[in-house]
């Protein structure tokens, strides 16, 4: 223990400027972050956003950079690359050296970060002690995704300059990975989104963390830089192989899809029905005048969802258009209208956007076609409902966080678009529908017209981990009631009305095939 403390004390004496900088940044973050809240600084949102939200984001970025520097300086103080370091021929034992470095990180990175998060939570009205599991989970993610990989890279570089170059290389690799991943996507392959339930943040953190720990131990115990580098290079190699082998893994992915969303049994009804509403507008246009690709827009009516249930259409939703002569075209739904893929029991309109070759469209358009949807669905069960009188006060949603209705525009609340500014700790709230007991007619003279909105909206996630990766503990949801779906004409919010927030919980996942026959596609102009 004695050598560990000596090395630790030496590092503290040597790196106090770096420690001070990193602590100062966190202190500034604790000061600035809560000033995004209207109850702390009484300014309209747009001004608060400009003044404080961006400062907070800047401080978060600076904190990450200061930790990079701190980790680099700390590990390079007893560099593992090279053969001129004094410590190689002194009575250092590598476990003591590594332990001293870890204690340093705990004291000057983890503890200040945990304290910062606790203070921000407290300033936001949350009890940090209740949120300890989320805090630890977040630190676990930070360890696997950020700290351990940085330490591992520091062990195979000899100074900060080389480490910065390596990090730039990692960044370039990540960009290449994303670009490749987007370009090597086949119609038959599933989108990465499907894999999210299994390849989540924790899996990523564990994968990166395990490779990093192995590299760190190998380098400290044996100082085999090339072997350690090869081990670290396994991570991008695995990712690159995953992208390049995507065409070959389509069948495998389909198997994963079937396991994640089991197909409905024969005769079992899907929890929602799709029809084409009468007199609805559909359209088609070429991407450009000379393009051989067309964008097709088809209005849909969603119905048949049982009472107190909701349905979330997951990714990837596929559609097949079948002509009477047997010709068919199949592809992924490019987008659901207005980005809404959650539906509750009330009748609802929606629409799909498709991109398909003009030649296929021309052939399909000549006669009525059959639409066949293949949808991964999550059936949601309505849980507790919270009714909140319309006001400008922040109100709590039990077990979720708190929200405040406010406006982007200057002047009074509800003077422009009504929307909720909700915040929760460490992760997005559970999937929640927000509606109001609004009026289809203008407000009576006795009541003040507060707003004119489109209808209910959704926020949150159907699956969320105890915490999302991030330095700041707060997660935000901005839900504009005026921008969601438009099956009705606008609704009027009057004084005395209430908002209703209904939380849902995933009940079952399934794959459903829905058919709509006799659909006449509009002519391509």
């Amino acid at each position, binding site marked *: 223990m004695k050598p560990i403390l000596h090395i630790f004390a*030496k590092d503290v004496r040597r790196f106090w400027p770096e420690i001070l900088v990193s602590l100062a940044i966190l202190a500034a973050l604790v000061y600035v972050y809560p000033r995004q809240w209207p109850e702390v600084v009484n300014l309209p949102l747009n001004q608060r956003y400009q003044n404080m939200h961006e400062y907070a984001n800047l401080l978060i970025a600076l904190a990450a950079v200061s930790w990079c520097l701190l980790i680099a300086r700390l590990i390079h103080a007893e560099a593992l690359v090279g053969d*001129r370091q*004094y410590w190689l021929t002194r009575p*250092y034992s590598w476990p003591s050296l590594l332990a001293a470095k870890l204690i340093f990180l705990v004291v000057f990175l983890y503890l200040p970060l945990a304290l910062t998060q606790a203070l921000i939570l407290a300033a936001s009205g949350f009890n940090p002690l209740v949120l300890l599991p989320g805090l630890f989970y977040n630190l676990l993610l930070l360890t696997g995704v950020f700290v351990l990989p940085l330490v591992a890279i520091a062990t195979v570089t000899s100074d900060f300059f080389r480490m910065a170059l390596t990090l730039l290389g990692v960044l370039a690799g990540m960009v290449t990975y994303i670009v490749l991943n987007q370009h090597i996507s086949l119609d038959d392959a599933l989108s990465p989104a499907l894999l999210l339930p299994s390849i989540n943040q924790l899996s990523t953190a564990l994968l990166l963390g395990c490779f990093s720990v192995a590299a760190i131990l190998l380098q400290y115990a044996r100082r085999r830089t090339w072997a350690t580098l090869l081990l670290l290079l396994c991570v991008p190699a695995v990712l690159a192989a995953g992208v390049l082998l995507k065409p070959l893994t389509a069948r495998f992915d389909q198997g994963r899809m079937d396991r994640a969303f089991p197909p409905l049994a024969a005769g079992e009804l899907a929890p929602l029905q799709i029809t084409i509403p009468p007199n609805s507008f559909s359209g088609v246009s070429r991407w450009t005048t000379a393009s051989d690709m067309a964008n097709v827009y088809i209005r849909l009516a969603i119905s048949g969802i049982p009472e107190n249930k909701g349905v979330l259409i997951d990714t990837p939703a596929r559609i097949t258009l079948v002509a009477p002569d047997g010709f068919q075209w199949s592809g992924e739904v490019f987008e659901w209208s207005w980005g809404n893929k959650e539906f509750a029991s009330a009748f609802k309109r929606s629409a799909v956007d498709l991109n398909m070759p003009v030649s296929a469209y021309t052939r399909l358009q000549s006669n009525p076609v059959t639409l066949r949807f293949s949808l991964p669905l999550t059936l949601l069960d309505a849980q507790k409902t919270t009714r909140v009188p319309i006001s400008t006060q922040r109100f709590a949603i039990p077990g979720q966080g708190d929200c405040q209705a406010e406006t982007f525009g200057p002047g009074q609340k509800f003077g422009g678009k009504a929307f909720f500014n909700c915040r929760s700790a460490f992760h997005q709230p559970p999937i929640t529908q927000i509606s109001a007991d609004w009026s289809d007619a203008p407000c009576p003279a006795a009541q003040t017209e507060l707003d004119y909105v489109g209808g209910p909206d959704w926020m949150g996630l159907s699956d969320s981990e105890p915490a999302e990766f991030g330095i700041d503990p707060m997660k935000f949801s901005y839900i504009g009631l005026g921008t969601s779906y438009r099956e009705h004409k606008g609704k009027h919010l009057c004084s005395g009305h209430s908002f209703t927030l209904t939380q849902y919980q995933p009940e079952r996942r399934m794959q459903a095939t829905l058919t709509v026959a006799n659909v006449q596609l509009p002519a391509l102009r």
Partner: protein
Amino acid sequence: MKAAIRTESLTKRFGRTAAVESIDLAVPEGAIYALVGPNGAGKTTAIKLLMNIMRPSAGRAEVLGIDSSKLTGEAFQRIGYVSENQELPEGMTVAGMLDYFRSFYSAWDRTLEEQLVRQFDLPLKRKLTHLSRGMKMKAAFVSSLAYHPALIVLDEPFSGLDPLVRDELIEGLIERAPETTIFISSHDLAEIENFSSHVGYLEQGRLLFSEEMSVLSGRFREVTVTLSSPSPLPANLPATWLQAQTADCVVRFVHSEYREQTSHREIQEKIPSARDVSFEPMPLRAIFLAIAKSGRDSAAHSSVQEAQA
């Protein structure tokens, strides 16, 4: 005698280049062993192999009875290592560094530390980064001698130092000699000649010989043979006669296996016209030059073999 350092076919290759080629070496306990050779001969690599800073490509080494590949942590309680290329904790003051190192050594002698600091006139409050090369080397010496190491390994410790600093360091080192084994590498023969007890000569990664200084000095002689009449060098001269040349009635060469009882007769047999033969002892520098200039391999190999025998 027990060896503080022993190597067996110790080899280090970098790609196709052999920096150290099959070295067999034994440094007796209590010796002051000088590993000499020109720049690039492989001295630093050999020392890094001994100190487990590098791993050998083949062969093995033992240092204080420990396999060099296992030389870590506690083993360095008994070893002091100073190198011209070694990085020190530059951000620390001299006192800070000594304070820090002191905590790692159970045998650290505070009195000896203070004595060495005074002897080397070290500025304790100055940061290492602000010290001259000579001062840094002195600080490194103090931090490597103050715990009475059983073995002191020095890699070109005097390189680039002014004579005054060099003498101070040598003085400090010689004071420690009775209690320790010293292994020192140098390309400058003059600086180690006066205090080394053993010497090894390394060239192009090969150890050409390794023996006690007195034995080495004893077996090398500069020989001058005066002939009764001018005559050419006889054919088939022994391989132990280096740099043989003749001018008028004089033949000169370096005898690498001089023996007081037999060498005179041996010369008379090889050169029957020899009228007078004189043998002059050679300084170490002259011996190395003779080896370097002559057909090294054959002479040196035979010397090593004979010395080992």
